[in-house]
C-alpha cells in the first residue's frame, strides 16, 4: 500500500470507529495519544523522541470534547478531499475554509492544535494529509539531480541561491548525484560564502542553507539523502546554545513533534559547528553569553539528547568561558579562511 492509500484508509478508519460505536448504541469516543510532556520519551535505541502509550479519550458525551471531535472529523474530511485530488493547503487556508463548516475554529491556534491532534490520532504526518506549513525549506546547492513531477532539476544549476526545498519534498525523487556528503550551514551568509569559495567542489558536497531552525521539509530532505543516498550529513552552526540545538533537532528530533520524528530525525547526522573548544583554539571574536544563553545551556545539559561526553564537555566549557561565537566570525582571518582552513580541519577530525 502506498503512502496515499495508507492515509486514506486511516482517515476512513476514524469515521468507522465513530459510526460503529453509534450502531452499538454506545457514546462514541476517539482515542487521542497524549502530547503532554510526560508522554514524550527519548528512545535510546532510535536516538530520537517518540510518543509514549498514554492517551486521552475524546467523548461525544463531554461538552468540551465533543466540539474537538466535531472539529477533528470535519478537518479529516477536508484532508480526505486534499489527498484524493492530490492537492495541498496551508493550515492558514484551512482555517479560512473552515468558516464554511458546521463547526468552526475560534482562532488559528485552535485549528493548529486540532491539526496536531489529527496527526497523532491517525499516526500520519501533516504533509501526508495535504496540510503544508507556510514556510519554505532550505536552499540546496551542489551536484544532485532530482525529479519533481516530470521536471528534472540540478541543484548546481538553479542559480546562486540553489534549489529551494518545497514543502512537498516527499513527492520528489532523487535521480542522480555526484557528491560524498552534505554540509548544512545555519545562515544564508555562510551558504553564499561556501558557494563563492566553491566548497561544493573542494569537499564534494551538497551545501544546505538552513535559514535558522530547520523547517520540517528540510529535516525530511536531510533524512532522505542520509538514508536513501547514504550520504553523511554534517551540520555547521553558530557556537551558541541556539546553534547547538538547531543541529540537535535535525539529529534527534524535537520533543514537540515526537509523533512524526520517525519521519524527521536523522540520528546519524553529525554536529560540525563552532564549539567552545573552537572558540578557544581559533581565538574567535566572541560575544559574552547573555543570561538567557546561560539558562538555555543549563537546560541543554539536562536534556537526554545531550547526554554524551562530547556535549557535556562543550556545554561546560562554554559556560566556563562565558562566551559564544558565530560561524562568520572566522572572517577575522579573511573571508576564505572558513572554507580553506577551518572546514578541512574539522572534517579531518570527524
Amino acid at each position, binding site marked *: 500500500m502506498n503512502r496515499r492509500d495508507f492515509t486514506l484508509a486511516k*482517515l476512513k478508519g476514524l*469515521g468507522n470507529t*465513530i459510526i460503529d460505536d*453509534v450502531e452499538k448504541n454506545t457514546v462514541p469516543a476517539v482515542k487521542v495519544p497524549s502530547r*503532554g510532556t510526560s508522554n514524550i520519551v527519548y528512545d535510546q535505541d532510535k536516538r530520537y523522541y517518540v510518543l509514549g502509550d498514554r492517551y486521552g479519550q475524546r467523548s461525544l458525551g463531554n*461538552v468540551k470534547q*465533543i466540539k474537538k471531535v466535531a472539529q477533528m*472529523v*470535519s478537518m*479529516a474530511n477536508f484532508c480526505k478531499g486534499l489527498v484524493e485530488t492530490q492537492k495541498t493547503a496551508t493550515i492558514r487556508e484551512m482555517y479560512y475554509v473552515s468558516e464554511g463548516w458546521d463547526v468552526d475554529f475560534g482562532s488559528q491556534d485552535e485549528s493548529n492544535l486540532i491539526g496536531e491532534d489529527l496527526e497523532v490520532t491517525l499516526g500520519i504526518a501533516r504533509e501526508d494529509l495535504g496540510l503544508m506549513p507556510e514556510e519554505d525549506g532550505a536552499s540546496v546547492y551542489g551536484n544532485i539531480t532530482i525529479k519533481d513531477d516530470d521536471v528534472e532539476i540540478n541543484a548546481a544549476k538553479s542559480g546562486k541561491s540553489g534549489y529551494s526545498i518545497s514543502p512537498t519534498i516527499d513527492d520528489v525523487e532523487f535521480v542522480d548525484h555526484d557528491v560524498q556528503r552534505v554540509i548544512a550551514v545555519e545562515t544564508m551568509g555562510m551558504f553564499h560564502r561556501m558557494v563563492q569559495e566553491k566548497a561544493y567542489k573542494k569537499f564534494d558536497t551538497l551545501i544546505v542553507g538552513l535559514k535558522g531552525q530547520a523547517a520540517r521539509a528540510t529535516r525530511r530532505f536531510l533524512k532522505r539523502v542520509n538514508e536513501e543516498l547514504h550520504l553523511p550529513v554534517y551540520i555547521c552552526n553558530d557556537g551558541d546554545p541556539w546553534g547547538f540545538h538547531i543541529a540537535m533537532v535535525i539529529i534527534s528530533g524535537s520533543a514537540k513533534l515526537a509523533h512524526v520524528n520517525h519521519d524527521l530525525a536523522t540520528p546519524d547526522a553529525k554536529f560540525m559547528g563552532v564549539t567552545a573548544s573552537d572558540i578557544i583554539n581559533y581565538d574567535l571574536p566572541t560575544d559574552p553569553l547573555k543570561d538567557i544563553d546561560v539558562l538555555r545551556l543549563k537546560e541543554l545539559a539536562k536534556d537526554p539528547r545531550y547526554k554524551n561526553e562530547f556535549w557535556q564537555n562543550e556545554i561546560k566549557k562554554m559556560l566556563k568561558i562565558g562566551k559564544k561565537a558565530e560561524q562568520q566570525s572566522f572572517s577575522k582571518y579573511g573571508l576564505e579562511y572558513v572554507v580553506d582552513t577551518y572546514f578541512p580541519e574539522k572534517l579531518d577530525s570527524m
Partner: protein
Amino acid sequence: MSAEREASEIFEEFKELTPSEFFRRNKQMLGFSGKIRSLTIVFHELITNSIDAAEEAGILPEMVIDLKRIDKDHYILRHQDNGPGIPEPFITKVFCTMFAGSKFRNIQSRGQQGLGCSGCVLLSQMTTGQPVKIRSGYKEGNKIKGVEMTVKMDVKTNQGLILDRKEIELDSTGVSMELHFKDVSYSLSEQGAFEYIRRTMIANPHAKIVFKDPTGSRYIFDRATDEIPPMPKEVLPHPKGVTADDLIFMAKHTDKRRFRSMLTSSLSRMSNKRVDELEEITGIDFNKRPKDMKWEEAEKIVELFQSMDFMAPPTAGLIPIGQEQVEKGMIEILEPEYVKTITRKPKTYKGGVSFVIEAGLAYGGKSGRVVGEQKKAEIMRFANRVPLTFDQGSCGITEALKSIDWKRYGIRDLENAPITVFVNIVSTHVPYMSTGKQSVAPEAEIMQEVRQATMKIARSLQKYLNAKRAAKEEAMRAKVFETLVPVVLKEAAILAERDVPEYIEVMKKVTRNAGILGGATDDE
C-alpha cells in the same frame, strides 16, 4: 556676637498657654488641614456627638443638617439633633472648653478626644469671627427646658463667653446649632462631607439624617431599622492590657484603702485567688496603701500578668452593629444584587485589648464607585461605626483586604469589580496610626481577623456568582450537544463512506450529561 544674657532675663518671657490658645496656633493637630478635609472633620464631630448622645439617652438618633453656601469657601452649617439635649450649665463647657467631655471612660465610643464640638467652634471663630448659636432642649423632671444662647470662645481662658441668652419653649429635647465657616469646601469626592454622611448611614442603620446640600437638594437617609443598639458597658481594663504606668495611675486615684482591693475593683478578671497568687510570687505586701506602690513593684506585677492565664476580657463593653443590621444598612444605601455580612466573635490584640471585626460585601446595584464610565471597587472602613475617610493607603484594614487573594473567590480583578467592601472594627481601644484617627495600625491579630471575616463572606459571594454562572452554562451545554452530535455523525459518515445511523439512543445518553462536566478523561 550678641552679649551674654542671664537666665532670669530670658525667663521673663516665659508663659503658659491654655489648650484653646495652643490649638489656635496648631489647628492642624485637630485635623483641620485642607478645605475639604476641614469640613468633613466638622461633620464627623457633630454627627458622632449627636448619635452618641441619642443612644446614651435611649433615643433613635435623627438629625437635620443644612449646609448653605454664602460665598466661595464660606458656609453656614445648621445641625440639629433629637438627643437628650445639654443642661444649661454644661453648654459653654461643651462648646468652648477644650479637653472637656463625657467620653473619657474605658468604653467603646465614636468620638473620644474631648476636642470635638469645641474644635469646631474654634475653627468657626478663627475663620469667620462669628459666635455660635445654640439651642438646647432637655428634660428636667417631666418638663422640657429650652434655652437659646449665643456664645463665643475665650481662648485666653479656655472658657465660653455668653453674648446672649434666652429661655424658649420647645416640644422636644435635642441640640441645634448654627456655625459659620470660611476656608472650607464642600465636595462630593470620597473624602467629602456627602460621602461621609452616606457611609455613616451604612454603619448606623438605626439613624436618620435629612441633609440639605449647598445646591438646595434635600437628601433623606431613612433608617433601615428601629432597633437602638444597646449601650456598651464600661468595662474594667484587662490585666493583660495594662502598663505599669496605668497601675500607678490607678493607685494614685483610687478610693480604695488597700492595694489588694484596688486591684480587684479596678481590673477585670482579677479574683482574690489571683491576687493571692500574685502576692505569693512577688512577695509584695498587698495590704499596703495603694499610694505606697512603687514603680518596680508595678512593673513586676505587670510582667507577671503576661505569664498568667486570665479569662478573655469581658465583651460587654463591645457592641458591634450586628450582622443583620449591617446587612440592612448596606441594602438601604447600596441596593445591591447580592449582599453578605458577618460579625465575628471578639478577639484580642496586644494580649488583652478585645475587639470585634464586622465585614460586609455588596455586589451589583449601587455597589462600588463610578469612575468615569467604569465601576470600581470601593473599600469602606469604619472604627466603632465611624467612617474612616482619610489615610486609606496606610490603614491596616486596607492592607489586610489587599492581601487577600481575591482570584480564589472568583473575583479576578477586585479594583474593577462592582463591589463595596465594608469593614468595621469595634473596640474600646482602636489602635489608630496617627493623630487624625483615620487609619488603623496593622496589628497582626486585627489584620488576621479582617482577612478571616472577609474571606468567609467572599466564599459566599463566590457561591452566588458561581451559581449564577452555572445556571447559564447548563442551558448552554444542552444546546451544544443538540447542535454538535449531528455534525460529528454526518462528518464521520462521509469519512467512513457510510450512511448516518440511527442515533436517538446515543443522543439521549449524551444529553443526560448536560448537567455535569465529567465523562471521559482528557489529559490537556
